[in-house]
């Protein structure tokens, strides 16, 4: 469920990037103050471990299909939430840059969905809350399962919200939600079972690892809720601004292409934005002035401009292709 850059708007990418950078700085500070310096290579190597373990196919009994490990919950169990979050962030950054899995602008969203939820929400509130040193194997198994499912459900909910707020997908929220949450319920069950098996095995094989390898970073619930509130305000603030400017941009593009205005009842805020756009647009009105909307015919299309646009697009593609050929030609010549 790695989000791609193509599906998000700059506002969403920006808000979540800023949030994630804040979280990472907080986590880095926490880890650095409580860190036994030997843990640094441990975080690195465990990051690589999770990366490799994500590629193992776990056969799902009776279905013939297979599932995978996500790793966020496992990492916070092994390292504590702050170090787990940073390790997850490193994994996602490498996946985005080196394997083209998940976008670079979308990194904030991805780290938030796959790192923040399992490490800072599910681990302290569910896993750590219900599991302690004396917990039975069944209990550890059950709680790991529930925690993993919850973590993934929250993560996929994050994907839906971020995609919808970006306004690029036309998929209705309801359908999108049902689709994502049900798919991730299945994935969550597998992830939960795998995490639970690993944790149970470890509890048995190395009882001294009962404690997280790194001391648990104390997270106060109050601080957690406070940061949630700040995030909600931040997202709300940006969106109320974004939501009012987005239809305007859309409307503008519809006006340009169809020659007809779709929305009525503009607020003064919209008008101001429109005036601003007209003033600063590179080629103000060069299309609109000549357009006479055809009565009763919707959508009426300004053939002239659209045709020019399509011809121009073709020419640009041709130019780009030619540029490639010319560069290749020169490269060959200089090689000999």
């Amino acid at each position, binding site marked *: *469920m790695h989000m*791609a*850059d193509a*599906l998000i*708007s*700059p506002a969403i*990418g920006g808000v979540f990037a800023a949030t994630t950078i804040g979280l*990472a700085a907080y986590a*880095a500070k926490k880890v650095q103050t409580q860190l036994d*310096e030997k843990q*640094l*290579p*441990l*975080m690195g*190597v*465990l990051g*690589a*471990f999770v*990366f490799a373990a994500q*590629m*193992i*196919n*776990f*056969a799902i*009994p009776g279905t013939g299909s297979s599932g995978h490990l996500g790793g966020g919950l496992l990492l916070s169990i092994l390292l504590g939430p702050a170090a787990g979050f*940073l*390790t997850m*962030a*490193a994994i996602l950054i*490498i996946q*985005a*840059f*080196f394997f*083209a899995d998940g*976008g*670079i*602008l979308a990194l904030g969203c991805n780290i938030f969905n796959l790192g923040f939820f399992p490490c800072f929400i599910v681990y302290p509130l569910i896993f750590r809350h219900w599991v302690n040193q004396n917990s039975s194997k069944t209990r550890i198994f059950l709680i790991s399962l529930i925690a993993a499912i919850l973590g993934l459900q929250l993560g996929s909910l994050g994907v839906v919200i971020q995609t919808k707020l970006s*306004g690029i*997908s036309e*998929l209705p929220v309801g359908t999108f939600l049902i689709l994502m949450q049900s798919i991730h319920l299945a994935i969550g069950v597998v992830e939960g079972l795998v995490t639970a*098996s*690993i944790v*149970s*095995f470890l509890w048995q094989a190395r009882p001294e690892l009962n404690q997280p*390898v790194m001391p648990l970073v104390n997270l106060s619930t109050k601080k957690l809720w406070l940061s949630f509130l700040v995030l909600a305000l931040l997202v709300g603030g940006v969106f109320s601004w974004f939501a009012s400017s987005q239809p305007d941009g859309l409307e503008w*593009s519809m006006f340009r*292409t169809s020659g007809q205005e779709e929305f009525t009842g503009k607020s003064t805020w919209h008008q101001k934005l429109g005036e601003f756009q007209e003033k600063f647009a*590179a080629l103000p009105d060069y299309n609109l002035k000549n357009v006479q909307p055809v009565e009763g015919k919707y*959508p009426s299309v300004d053939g002239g401009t659209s*045709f020019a*646009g*399509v011809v*121009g*697009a073709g*020419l*640009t593609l041709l130019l*780009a292709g030619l*540029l*490639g050929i010319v560069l290749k030609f020169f*490269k060959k010549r200089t090689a000999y």
Partner: protein
Amino acid sequence: MSKLIESGLELRELERLANKKTLIHQVNATAKLVVTLILIGITVSFSKYALIEIIPLLIYPVIIMNLADLSTKHFFKKILVGLPFVLLIAFFNLWYDQTAWLIFGKVSITGGMVSFLVILLKFILTVSAGLLLIATTPLTELTTALLRLKIPPFLITQLSLTYRYLSVLLEETATLLQAYSLRSFKKTGVQYQVWGSLVGQLLLRTLARAERVHQAMLCRGFQGIAFTRNKSQLQLCDWYYLCAWVCFFVLVRLLNLPEILGMIFTGGFR
């Protein structure tokens, strides 16, 4: 199972490409990183129907790929990795957005078709921008660039350590899975009875390895933060590179270049 080996090989291939010596490879990593980030920002900022406006940005990958001597085929294969999820979401646009956007005679092009293509174009542009950066910049230079952009050294050390141990652990996991598959009669995937012990064993080995790594690092004078190669400041040509691309991107964002080109050719300005 071969996915692990494939990923390992891919990492090695990217590292080989990054150490080439071409015009683009010689540009300062900070300049390249900033250009990449701006390109991604500009690409994403286009509205969802801006199919025609966005096309000129394709010139960036065409130029870089050629100047940096990279194979187009190899790149397209890499770009395809993240495509399924994007395609799935984009397909729904075709379905749900049926408003006519352009009409050519009897054929009407719907808004959904346009936004579908825009998502694909944005996807190709953003993904190739990231890949081109990695394929033309060695990791050591990239970490220096990140340091210069004020990313905390602690995070950078974490990132480089994870990256460095990736190939080691990919290989180790591949060996483990090969041993398992050779003993497990045509099974697809790891059976649930050994989920815990198989991955758990790998984890225990990983922990032991981390211990050895730390000892080795201490022997070589590690003091908490990994050293990065300190490269010289941005040269004049790096600034030219940065400014030229940024100007181009801003121009593409502000003007509808293909439409202007089309107007000139079809006489639309008269």
